[in-house]
């Protein structure tokens, strides 16, 4: 390990370190700033003095958000939507992608049909009427079933399965497993990388999605947190008076927005450590190497 001592290496590692530190700052500093803003009083925020330390510390913004009667059910609904949606999506995409990765009849047509939905769809009103006709309106299923297959992610999965070594599957078949068993007992356990990557994408997708809930749900007690927070924030400027009757000395639009961002992104942050170890192996890298 003598190269560690060379000048080049030291220069390289210093620059490397500085560059990485810069990247880390680029990611964390905005969050620190938001945290500071969310805790500062309104005079400090409107004067633009707040950087990374809060001025006039108070929790009014968080209080305002968490006082909303639907906030707890919002969190609960968002978690249910995310978990159920991700599981259904994973299942649907796996059983869709795996057969499509095999040279079956009509494969090209089917892939083409899936691709088509990336660019064309029936439009909002027909989709709404379809979901209404199916009787899914105002149920969890309206959110998690119709949109469970994301074509772009499906393509990635098909590519991954295609590069899966055929020999393994063949030997399993010789050992008497049927295709379903091969998929669930042999292929999936060896595909954790792609499953982890997909899970993360899907979790973020479902967590952030408020629009489908807005359109297909009718009861506020079914709304996810994003929709509720969106409504709080939309009303949260001094113009239309949703801040009416609150402590304006401590609470401002800026602090409220920052608090909302903190409150809604933290839960999603918490999922990253669980999938990160799979992620370090690379998303598409694994697909190529098999």
């Amino acid at each position: 390990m003598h190269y560690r001592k060379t000048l080049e290496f030291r220069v390289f590692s210093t620059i490397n370190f500085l560059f990485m530190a810069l990247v880390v700052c680029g990611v964390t500093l905005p969050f620190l700033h938001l945290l500071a803003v969310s805790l500062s009083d309104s005079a400090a925020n409107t004067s633009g003095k707040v950087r990374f330390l809060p001025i006039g510390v108070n929790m009014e913004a968080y209080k305002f958000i968490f006082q909303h009667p639907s906030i707890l059910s919002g969190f609960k609904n968002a978690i249910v939507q995310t978990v159920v949606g991700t599981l259904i999506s994973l299942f649907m995409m796996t059983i869709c992608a795996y057969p499509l990765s095999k040279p079956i009849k009509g494969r090209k047509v089917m892939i083409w049909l899936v691709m088509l939905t990336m660019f064309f769809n029936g439009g909002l009103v027909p989709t709404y009427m379809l979901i209404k006709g199916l009787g899914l309106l105002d149920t969890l299923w309206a959110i998690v079933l119709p949109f469970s297959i994301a074509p772009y992610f499906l393509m990635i999965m098909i590519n991954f399965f295609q590069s899966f070594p055929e020999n393994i599957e063949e030997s399993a078949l010789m050992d008497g497993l049927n295709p379903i068993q091969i998929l669930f007992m042999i292929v999936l356990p060896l595909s954790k990388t792609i499953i982890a990557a997909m899970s993360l994408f899907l979790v973020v997708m479902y967590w952030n999605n408020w629009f489908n809930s807005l359109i297909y749900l009718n009861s506020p007690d079914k709304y996810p947190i994003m929709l509720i927070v969106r409504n709080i924030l939309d009303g949260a400027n001094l113009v239309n008076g949703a801040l009416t009757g609150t402590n304006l000395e401590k609470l401002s639009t800026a602090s409220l927005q920052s608090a909302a961002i903190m409150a809604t992104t933290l839960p999603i942050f918490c999922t990253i450590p669980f999938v990160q170890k799979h992620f370090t192996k690379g998303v598409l890298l694994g697909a190529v190497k098999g």
Partner: protein
Amino acid sequence: MEKMSITRFGVWSRLTALSLLVAIPLAACGDSANKAGSADAAKEGGGPVTLTMLYSESGSPFNKDWPVYKELQARNNVKLDLQVVPESDYQSKAKIVLSSDKIPDLVTNINQSNVLELGGTGVLLPISDYMDKLPNLKKRIEEFKMEDELENWKSPDGKLYVLPFLTQSASYNRSPMIRTDLLEKYGLKAPTNTEELYAVLKKMKEMNPGSYPFTGTSADDLRSMWGAAWGIEPSYKGFVFNEQTGKYEYIYTSENYKKYVTYLNKLIKDGLADPELFTSNYDQMHQKLSTSKSMFYFFWNGEEISNINLLGKKNTGPEFKMAMLPPIAGPAGEKALAGTRIDRGTVIPASAANKPYFEDLLKFADYLYSDEGIDLLTWGIEGDTYVVKEDGKKEFTDKMKQSENLNKALWDIGSANGSFTLVWPFKWFATILGNEDFEKYTEEANKNNWFTPAAKVPKLSTDQKDEESLLIAGVNDYYAKMQEQFVYGKVSIDQEWDSYVKEIHAKGVDKLLDVYNSTLK
């Protein structure tokens, strides 16, 4: 080997797909059957009729236990079944619901363009055909002298398809505002016209060299609040009906509009107006005003005054005082834009006419316009939230007066509701706002004719609407781009004005004029 595996894959994937296809509709059927059953039961029992409604959630979060909401249902013997939609996205959801085949009995908060768009299509109930069953609405329209304004809400067939939200009186709720403490300090008089304003801004700049005295948030907002004084507001998308010639004209190529951009350009050139006059957001604007980087702006003044003073006292000092002014007179004189007295409405689907409870639906709608209904939905519950004094005047009870904020307190009992309260009396509104200037200036405005009447909206058929929407975006983009370049001095007004006028006419103004004028025949 290979072949065998293929067929087996095929069978299995088909089987799984099939089982899923079967499972979903089954689950769905069970659900909808249950719902339909319970709804029918409610109707048959002779008890309250169930009315469905698309509700826009604003103010306080909806609560079915609001005393006013319960009282409203009890007094009308109805049961309301609400679909609560957050206000932030209400319009998009309402549009989808109105395009679907099953529309709730009442859809609130529909704006003018959507009402006019849907009016002729047969989706909505022609309210004007049922005026004999809506005596209170009729009375209210006559009492407030709303006929002229209501004309703009009627479809080309002359029918009204909406239950309008009525604001009793135009109010002086958008105005110029200035730091009166600085006026006093520098020995200046409050500006009343554009020349005086220029002098005042100049002095303020002199005394505060780093400042940009005049700030704002957007070009459209500024024009809408100050345009009346320049004779360029109100308009329908930039078009105004000229009573003398009996034709529509495009106002953003007029001499007055040229004067307006020239004036703003001068302010920018001399450093008197904020380089971000058209681009600041509310927070940035409040920051500039409260830290004395700017001293003058046009804004919706309601609660703004107390908010900005609170922030200013903290950031600048206890002497900070922002106050509203009468209109700054321009070429058109001392004029202010009246907030339109009808800005949205509730619609009923045409299909409701066949429902067994149609009469009850109309009765409920009419109740919202009745004296009793208005009192309930604005003042709340007699004895509890307000009392009627001997002279007939109403007053809020101490419980309400002592609340931190009267408006919020009303929201929390279900009153002053953005979906149910269809009539907004002026005296009540002024009481809530509690700003003496607001009441004083509104009275003066009515006396001195500051308010300009609403612009005449052309009655377009569906085809004409399509043609309009094809053209208007291009015209508006070009107008907005050129306005900015004129004001910021990127393009010389003297040299480029004629080519601007020519270009915008070619971009679609000529054709739009043809469309609008053809509706007059």
